[in-house]
């Protein structure tokens, strides 16, 4: 029996299976340019009444590869560059929200925002220094950090630049419009625990967090939030952080704008005033119509987006569809999501998929029968503070068009008679 298994696990079989699947991928990619007849003839061979080719031979052996990868047929479900930037190291990439299910973002699809690329950090060579207004400045290895009592939470993380005050590109997908948000289970130690270890002095009111990347990215965090639910995180969805998420250690500030969740964390300094870093003065401040700018606008307000049907997708026929999307709030739990199919004239309460967690993506669903007429799909989130996601016009009325960050207006997807879905902003 075991001998047979070894024979069946032979590399040649694995390779043949792989080649077959590669050919199928190539065929699938090429089918758009080939004639419909050829494509259909090829695919019909695996459809009833024929026996599919993958039932006629052994599949790939175990450990191919040791770290599992998505099916090759899912090769288009990838992060994409947000905008063309002068360098690929100060850039951002977007999560393909329209292709994901449930609330968890797979680690390889978590959005990225780097200011100086992804450092290649050997965890044994990494240190965290905690100093400033503390009784005893301390230095920690990663082995030290993981010895502290730990906790895990599912939290969203969103860049405050997610969404556009001005952009109304009809071709935008949900990835383009909202892809700077992701959601993972994060594991680490409470910042309050580590600050207590160093003996934080009561006059300490702001914590400087600094990364070990090539811009030593730094932000100031108010002590109230630092002692509330802020974490020093070393694991993401069950495994150690991905390098692009701050391996081996990052700050995680639930519900606060992405930039303050400092990656590759190497230093925490307790002070009695904000440190006025470049990231909290010249960037990540919100310019108002009168020329003043709001500073320290940390929280990500309630927001939602329909991920199906969404920009770039196609409804091939009339009939039943489940409208589905994501809602979240940096202030707490999502209490309600309403969906409109007529551009906001009428609203229907969507079903919230459990779990509904604080500062976490919440999946909502609503059954819908498309009658083939044009439709304008919108979703509107309400959180447990009673805050209702605003319309674009309501936001612009107050903040103008130049504040760049913290856009959370209601998104509209236009469905045309032919079933095409496009961005109507």
């Amino acid at each position: 029996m075991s001998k047979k298994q070894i024979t069946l696990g032979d590399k040649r079989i694995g390779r043949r299976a792989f080649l077959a699947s590669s050919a199928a991928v190539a065929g699938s990619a090429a089918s758009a340019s080939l004639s419909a007849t050829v494509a259909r003839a090829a695919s019909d061979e695996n459809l009833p009444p024929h026996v599919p080719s993958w039932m006629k031979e052994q599949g790939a052996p175990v450990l191919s590869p040791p770290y599992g990868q998505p099916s090759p047929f899912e090769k288009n479900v990838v992060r994409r560059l947000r905008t063309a930037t002068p360098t690929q190291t100060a850039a951002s990439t977007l999560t393909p929200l329209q292709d994901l299910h449930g609330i968890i973002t797979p680690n390889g699809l978590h959005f990225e925002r780097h200011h100086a690329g992804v450092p290649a950090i050997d965890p044994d060579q990494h240190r965290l220094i905690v100093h400033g207004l503390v009784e005893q400045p301390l230095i920690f290895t990663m082995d030290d950090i993981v010895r502290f009592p730990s906790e895990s939470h599912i939290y969203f993380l969103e860049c405050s630049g997610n969404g556009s005050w001005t952009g109304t590109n009809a071709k935008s997908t949900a990835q383009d419009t909202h892809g700077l948000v992701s959601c993972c289970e994060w594991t680490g130690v409470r910042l309050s625990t580590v600050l207590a270890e160093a003996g934080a002095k009561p006059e300490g009111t702001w914590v400087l967090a600094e990364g070990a990347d090539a811009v030593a990215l730094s932000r100031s965090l108010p002590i109230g939030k630092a002692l509330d639910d802020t974490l020093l995180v070393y694991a993401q969805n069950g495994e150690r952080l991905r390098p692009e998420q701050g391996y081996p250690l990052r700050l995680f500030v639930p519900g606060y704008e992405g930039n303050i969740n400092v990656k590759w964390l190497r230093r925490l300094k307790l002070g009695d005033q904000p440190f006025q870093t470049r990231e909290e003065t010249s960037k990540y401040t919100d310019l108002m119509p009168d020329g003043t700018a709001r500073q320290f606008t940390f929280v990500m307000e309630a927001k939602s987006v329909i991920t199906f049907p969404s920009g770039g997708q196609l409804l091939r026929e009339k009939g039943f569809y489940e409208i589905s999307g994501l809602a979240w709030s940096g202030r707490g739990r999502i209490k309600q999501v309403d969906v409109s199919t007529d551009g906001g004239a009428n609203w229907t309460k969507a079903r919230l998929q459990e779990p509904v967690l604080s500062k976490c993506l919440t999946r909502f669903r609503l059954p819908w029968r498309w009658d083939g007429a044009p439709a304008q799909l919108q979703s509107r989130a309400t959180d447990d503070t009673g805050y209702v996601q605003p319309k674009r016009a309501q936001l612009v009325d107050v903040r103008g068009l130049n504040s760049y960050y913290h856009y959370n207006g209601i998104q509209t997807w236009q469905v045309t008679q032919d079933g095409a879905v496009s961005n109507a902003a």
Partner: protein
Amino acid sequence: MPHSLRIVLLCAIVAAATANPVRAAEPARFGIGHAATADAIAGWDIDVRADGRGLPAGHGNVADGRKIFAETCASCHGEKGEGEPADRLAGGFGTLATSKPVRTVGSYWPYATTLFDFIRRAMPYNAPESLTADQIYAVSAYILYLNKIVPEDAVLDASSLPKVAMPNRNGFTSPDPRPDAP
């Protein structure tokens, strides 16, 4: 009291106070990590606050800054800080309340100290933490000169840099007024 002794005592106090004998008591301190030496901290303690705390000894002038800027900064920020491909550093005065705001060091940044802090930690982009304190003071002086904030004969150091009057010093508001819409 030494760190370790204090922890032992705290453990004893917490253990005595706990009602559940099965669960190990969580001490206020765990005795994890080591004392960070002044030397170790000094090498990493690079932040500069708005009041100037953290600024190192040294000084730099506009003329030296112009040379350093031309050699190490201009290829990304433009000869006179006009920007492209990287951020524009100069000009933009009077634009913040218009439909096309131009945010530069001169028109937008509230503190001159941030300039030193950011150059020291992040610039030049292809060789961060490579400039000396004197060079950073000089480049800061030149960028402020390009914005007509300091005169051509300005010399900046730890005492003068925090005193530079930035035009948009009072342009920032906090705390956060949200929720503000609707």
